[in-house]
């Protein structure tokens, strides 16, 4: 299976990058859906309807959507503990995701994975991972596999800047560079390694790290889905040309705490900082304003998109709340294939 034309098209010079308006609107809808999804997760957790932990990606919608929009349906991703956005952007269904978050039988992993382990091979999602940096080996291995099979697939490894402290990331980047594997390491730098600012954990320059392996490293405004999308397309073209792995830094921000229970966080970041990002750097607003200013969409269209996304999310929650729990006999199923 070889890649088809869209991947090798040269980029248009105009602001829309030659992308049909429908695709921008689809990206807007996906971002709104992720935002609404996370709001519901927060509600479910606070209402004690959701077991376990939840790490919300609100504020980081553009990196998930911008990257995944530049991928083929059968391209691979690995995700993180803050991965709901990646899973949805890659094509997971809202209802089956909520079912998984609630530990219900129809969930993506039959209720055995939960929020931090959503996997959906049908949409190329090789799994969210609760170990920071845990997807690095898997994504790199999927790229090795794609290269050996000549499938033309690429592999994207999402991780936060906190994963830069994990040695395995450097081990696999070394091999990916040596073997010119079609993998993109997407570092979503949301500034905080759990409860600690990354400046306190990251020596030297972040970008110097992939550069040390000779890995092509680029940085984008992770709040601007257009920038993320354009850069990912360029990087994918590079991969397809066999030029080896790439490292994409998306500068972004998480609106909530490390997890839903992380409410009192003034000891590590200020309310002003949070307000500033929300007011000036919101990915949904940035795209909406651009679409409106360019005359590509009007307020009515955007409201209609938002309503559709929120309806889908509401229906998904309803489905999941009504869904049955797994049969007790499931407990020892799927230990071995």
């Amino acid at each position: 299976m070889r890649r088809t034309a869209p991947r090798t098209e040269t980029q248009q010079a105009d602001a829309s990058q030659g992308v049909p308006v429908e695709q921008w609107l689809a990206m807007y809808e996906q971002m709104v859906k992720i935002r609404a999804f996370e709001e519901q997760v927060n509600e479910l957790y606070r209402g004690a309807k959701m077991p376990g932990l939840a790490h919300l990606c609100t504020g980081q919608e553009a990196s998930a959507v911008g990257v995944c929009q530049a991928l083929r349906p059968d391209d691979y991703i690995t995700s993180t503990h803050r991965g709901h956005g990646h899973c949805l952007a890659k094509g997971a269904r809202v209802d089956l995701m909520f079912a998984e978050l609630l530990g219900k039988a129809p969930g993506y992993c039959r209720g055995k994975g939960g929020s931090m382990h959503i996997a959906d091979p049908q949409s190329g999602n090789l799994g969210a991972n609760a170990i920071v940096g845990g997807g690095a080996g898997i994504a790199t291995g999927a790229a090795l596999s794609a290269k050996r099979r000549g499938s033309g697939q690429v592999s994207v490894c999402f991780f936060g800047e906190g994963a830069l402290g994990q040695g395995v990331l450097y081990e696999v980047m070394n091999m990916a560079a040596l073997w010119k594997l079609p993998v993109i390491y997407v570092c979503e730098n949301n500034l905080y390694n759990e409860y600690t600012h990354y400046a306190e954990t990251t020596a030297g320059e972040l970008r110097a790290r992939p550069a040390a392996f000779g890995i092509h490293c680029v940085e984008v405004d992770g709040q601007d889905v257009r920038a993320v999308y354009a850069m990912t397309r360029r990087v994918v073209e590079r991969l397809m040309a066999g030029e080896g792995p790439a490292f994409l830094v998306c500068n972004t921000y998480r609106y909530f705490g490390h997890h839903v229970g992380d409410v009192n966080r003034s000891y590590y970041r200020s309310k002003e900082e949070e307000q500033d990002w929300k007011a000036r750097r919101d990915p949904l607003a940035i795209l909406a304003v651009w679409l409106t200013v360019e005359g590509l969409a009007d307020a009515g269209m955007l409201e209609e998109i938002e309503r559709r996304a929120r309806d889908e999310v509401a229906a998904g929650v309803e489905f999941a709340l009504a869904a049955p729990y797994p049969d007790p006999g499931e407990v020892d199923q799927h230990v071995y294939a």
Partner: protein
Amino acid sequence: MSTHSVPADREITFAQAVREALAEEMRRDPAVFILGEDVAEAGTPFKVLSGLVEEFGTERVTDTPISEAGFTGIAVGAAMTGLRPVVDIMFGDFLPLAMDQIVNQAAKVHYMSGGKLRVPLVVRTNLGATRRSAAQHSQSLHALLSHIPGLKVVLPSTPFDAKGLLKTAIRDENPVVFFEDKLMFQMKGPVPEGEYTIPFGVADVKRQGADITLVATSSMVQVALAVAHILEKEGISAEVLDPRTTVPLDAHTIVESAKKTGRAVVIDEGHERYGVTAEIAAVIAEGAFYHLDAPVRRMGAMDVPVPFSPVLEDLTVPTAERVAEAARALCGRT
């Protein structure tokens, strides 16, 4: 089927049996490939893989950097997406470097995905002391891996078993950790030319007996057979059982043998504390308690890091003399 009754018109070494299994599987299935440190031209320090790169090339016998976590993780991802990697961990002692990839990734993926993803991965590595290699090159860590649901753990004790079990491991849809004892690589035994596989979870009766059961793993099978030989001269008939896989474990055969003989010693080269011997002794106690004429004895390696000095190292591993002594005691012949 006991290895002692294997119909074969040739004898090859344990290392040759491993190599033959790999070569046959790589010829059969193009998805099978080998990944590890110095596996290609060097053929590993034990030369177990010598010659494979000449036939299959570096695309399928691939040298890696010294990065156990990295290449094991890469193998997990490759296994999830259509390939069948055989990872070589040069010494079993290096398994802890790759433990997150094996324990948190490979072993969990199938379950955590509700059965949607599979990891058909083989991790080949070794175990065993008494090579004067000191504490970081002498461990037997198979109990550690056997503790983790989602992994299968294989411990061949003969060239015949090595070939048949490795072929089964490569065809298995799950992550399998395959432990070879470093002392056995040059051991020769009958191995048929033709194609065969050995199912997991089937213990092998290496020797029939009536008075006491010796359950032994890996190179301890040879120790148990030596013990049986010693005891035979003393009028004690020992049965020697090799579980061959600790996961899955053939509890049925072990329990039935203990019921028949009424006595059991379990011998394994892993540390005794919380080890394979403890597990098998418990299985016997639970399944054959009312048939036992004596408490089950377990004999593992001492609970110390393996020392360098030959005088000290030899003290840490079960020997035929010490096992025979324990067996005699159980039989009331001190």
